[in-house]
């Protein structure tokens, strides 16, 4: 059932599903995908994660592929932390361009962008291939 759902999800979104590059400042050391996932879930503070706005397709795709959660599940997850003094969600920027700029300017930050839009201002830590 789950495989079927994932397959149909992949089919439905294959038009826009692109490879996602996880990016950081060029001075950043290696980060594992596990650590990236922890950072975006607010469970590790080693780097500062940067998000895109809610309902952004790339954000939905990243959260599904890297964190294994739907937008509604992510919202429920953060509401458990935000209203209880246990954490706060990542900062949000409006666009991929703004994200590249932010990551390039902040040595401890982490982001995700379409692999096709990577510039030499940032370092690619991992690629989620589709």
């Amino acid at each position, binding site marked *: *059932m*789950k495989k079927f*759902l994932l397959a149909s999800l992949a089919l439905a979104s294959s038009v826009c599903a692109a490879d996602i590059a996880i990016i950081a400042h060029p001075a950043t050391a290696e980060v594992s995908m596990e650590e990236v996932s*922890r950072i975006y879930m607010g*469970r*590790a*503070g*080693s780097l500062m994660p940067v998000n895109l706005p*809610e*309902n952004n397709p790339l954000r939905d795709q990243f959260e599904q592929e890297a964190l*294994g*959660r*739907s*937008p*509604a*599940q992510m*919202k*429920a997850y953060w*509401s*458990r932390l*935000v*209203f*209880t*003094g*246990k954490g*706060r969600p990542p900062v949000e920027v409006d666009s991929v361009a703004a994200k590249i700029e932010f990551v390039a300017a902040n040595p401890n930050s982490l982001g995700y962008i379409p692999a096709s839009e990577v510039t030499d201002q940032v370092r690619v830590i991992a690629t989620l291939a589709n």
Partner: protein
Amino acid sequence: MIGVQIHMVSKIKQLSLGVLLAMSVTAAQAEIRFNGFASIQAGNTLSSSDRLYGYDNEVDFKNESLFALQAQADLGDRLSVTAQLMGRGANDFNAEFEWAYLTYELNSQTRINAGRLRTPFYRYSDFMDVGYAYDWARVPSSVYNLDFNNLEGISLVRFGQLGEVDSTLQLILGSYSGTTAITPAPADANIERIAGATWELVQGNFSARVAYLTGKLTLVDQDGELSGLLSLLEQSGFAATANQIRIDDASSAFMGLALGYDNGSLVLSGEVVRARVKNTVIPSQNGYYLSAGYRIDSFTPFVSFEQRDNDGKAEIYQALAAENPFRPAVTTVVESFTTKRDTWNIGSRYDFHPSAALKVQFSSQKDKVADRRDQLLTVGIDLVF
């Protein structure tokens, strides 16, 4: 925003001075972030004599509905202040501070909160009011049934990793004063020297949580009926019986264990709790629930079972001779603490909007002491914003 601040000032007596000062500084110079959540829930029981969770056979939109607004201000240098104002329908939507605290981030893994906090008895204690955060219409009342939801004190939360396992450790110290019920009369409640620890471990799809809290509980009934009985017992030479009943600075302990599994589709959870108040009329309090749900796209149908099982301390009245004139009154008091209830719940969550979930839940509770069954249907919407 100004309206909110004015309202806050009118309720400010519940805030510590430190929080108050921080708020006024903040309003002047720091950015304040607002978040909120709400539940609008309608319910009615299935037959005219059924009563459950405050509902009867008339459709009621107020009983479990609530609105909350949270303001959080960064004061810089890792210090922030948060206040959460909540209005419950059951309380005529009169807004009160459920949370009001300062947060100091010692480092990226450790934070200290001080002020009015939620007492972390249960797995869902912290966000039991945020309906959007879970699938049920309400947290299982057989387990989530202590009235002492909040405390004034200090808490340390530490996130960490033990190999593959994510760990969240919370230590808490504080005290509580408020009202509760000594079945069924209203009573003033105080818990001094609350000290506790909770530890939550998450690995992949599995999660586990343990909680242990202790405190010194004092309950005084407001109508004086129980206190009157205790005085009479003492004056009549039955001080020993009075001492077995009285709840005065009584050593209390709470233990909770929760397990969960969530693979994205299948959602399983269970929690078992036990509370003890030594040398008082309050018997050992035992409860548990088991819940299973399955996510199918935007729908999460679920079924859960809850049980509450408290046996009144019969030895208190059995120690009195059968012809003792106090025996009937003492028996009534002791047996009012006997609770045996089984509850089945079946329902579904439907994520129809990015910020809102619709929930339908049917609950059927069997009260084995009163030998009655009460059935309830609720439909509600939970929002976060």
